[in-house]
């Protein structure tokens, strides 16, 4: 797998749909000087309107369902959704909880899953690279 044609930075918007903050902290860890993904142009943005990738954490609580859907709709195309953590992928330890409507792929289509509780920053970075490749393929098809 190689990234060739996407000649611009990859911007990500982070959505917490009810996470315990473990995955969120690992996402932030990927931005710290130890991993420093910003040197590759990967950075978190404050609005989905500027994002190429949605980083979704958490098992999607009832209150967050509409918000997640709306944030997904507000992200310009082509976009890639990355589900970070076990909770978003399967429900994790909150599986079949009365207050959940997730996992994430029940609400929005997910392109890349990054399992782990929480996943290490290396795994998140690997997921972002896979997302980047998917985005590149999507842009090439246009």
């Amino acid at each position, binding site marked *: 797998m190689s990234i060739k044609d996407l000649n611009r930075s990859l911007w990500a918007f982070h959505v917490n749909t009810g996470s315990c903050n473990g995955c969120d902290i690992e996402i932030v860890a990927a931005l710290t000087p130890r991993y420093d993904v910003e040197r590759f142009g990967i950075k978190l943005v404050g*609005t989905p309107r500027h994002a190429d990738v949605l980083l979704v954490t958490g098992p999607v609580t009832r209150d967050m369902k509409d*918000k997640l859907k*709306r944030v997904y709709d507000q992200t310009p195309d082509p976009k890639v959704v990355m589900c970070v953590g076990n909770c978003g992928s399967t429900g994790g330890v909150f599986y079949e909880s009365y207050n959940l409507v997730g996992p994430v792929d029940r609400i929005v289509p997910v392109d890349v899953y990054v399992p782990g509780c929480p996943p290490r920053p290396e795994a998140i970075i690997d997921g972002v690279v896979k997302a980047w490749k998917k985005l590149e393929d999507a842009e090439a098809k246009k």
Partner: protein
Amino acid sequence: MIDIMFRTVSGVWSPLALLAAAAIIIIVVYLIRSTGTKKYKKGTEQTVPFFSGGVAPEKNIHPGNLYWGFFEAMKKYYRWMVRLHTGIVNDYIYSFVLLIVIVAAVILIGGMA
């Protein structure tokens, strides 16, 4: 060629030069704008303001709301001022006459002193 040159105390300028500068600026702006992407789909959520995932309220916060503290502090004064502005011409004439009387009194008293 039409020679439109205006000489002023500080030099010479030509309206044609201004028009040429405006044309260059418009071309540069157009070129920068054309490098952008048309990724947003009109009429969808993509063109609706982002409100942290919630529904954007119809009544938004306006720049004028920044003056809230100012208006709050001056509330009494504004209430008094608004009450004076009745929209009736007679009231404005009365206040005008009253102002003239006060000014005249000040001048007269000041002149006598």
